[in-house]
């Protein structure tokens, strides 16, 4: 087993190492989001917080739409790995593009939501709040603090995922094991989706 460290596509060794590595990484990411959600939980459970009230300011329609967009992108990613395993590289690469595209759609919708909320003075952007009407009641600030941090961190992860996916499809021919690399990136993508699956009810469905 010790001989197979670098570049050799043996049945165990390299490929299994890669997958285990990704899962260990996802555990660390799970704890990152877990800690942020813990912050959210503490604020929500604190007495006097009007979380339900604040959640109403979010657009349920856009949130639901975004959830469906991300789930669809996960479907595309899953199909991409399936086609890559079946050596249908052309289909796989198109599916990856669809995945990335849907990710961009998600980000666009999210950005629009943020823009809209900033205009209403809900988001705690220090510079921006002078230009827009003052924030609504103090309690809502807490909720939107958590909202900004959670969706912002999620968004940053999504950007990295989109970059990863685009990189894989564009540089497909230059990868040593494109199907394997795609599989690992897809695991990351699905994880980002799972995080959103939890953020959606926590943020949008509290009302």
């Amino acid at each position: 087993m010790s001989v197979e460290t670098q570049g050799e596509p043996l049945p165990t060794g390299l490929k299994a190492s890669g997958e285990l590595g990704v899962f260990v990484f996802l555990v660390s990411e799970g704890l990152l989001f877990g800690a942020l959600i813990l912050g959210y939980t503490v604020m929500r459970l604190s007495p006097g917080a009007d979380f339900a009230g604040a959640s109403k300011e979010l657009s349920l329609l856009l949130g639901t739409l975004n959830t469906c967009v991300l789930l669809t992108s996960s479907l595309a990613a899953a199909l991409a790995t399936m086609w890559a395993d079946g050596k249908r590289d052309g289909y796989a690469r198109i599916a990856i593009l669809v995945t990335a595209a849907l990710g961009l759609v998600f980000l666009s919708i999210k950005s629009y939501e943020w823009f809209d909320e900033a205009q209403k003075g809900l988001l705690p952007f220090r510079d921006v709040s002078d230009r827009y009407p003052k924030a609504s009641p103090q309690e809502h600030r807490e909720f939107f603090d958590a909202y900004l941090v959670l969706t912002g961190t999620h968004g940053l992860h999504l950007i990295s995922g989109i970059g990863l996916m685009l990189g894989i499809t564009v540089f497909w021919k230059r990868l040593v094991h494109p199907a394997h690399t795609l599989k690992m990136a897809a695991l990351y993508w699905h994880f980002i989706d799972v995080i959103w699956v939890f953020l959606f009810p926590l943020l949008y469905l509290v009302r």
Partner: protein
Amino acid sequence: MITIRSAVLTYIGLIVLVLLTVGSIFIPLGVGNSLINLAIAVAKAALIGAVFMHLRKPLPLAAMSIFVLLFWLCLMYGFTLSDYATR
């Protein structure tokens, strides 16, 4: 192995769950709403994990790492919230 069939079925199941979870908030159940929504979220995560992330027939180490994650989250939440609950 993922087949088109299993992927699409999973996808449909996920969308159905989304509609369910959104629909459920229109029935006022107090704390029950939150519990239902969280349960549905867990179900969706499980579906994505099991089918898309191949966790139905996983590498034993991959499955163990998920277990470790969940256990550690329980540690973090349990001990921290015990402080807030008893202050």
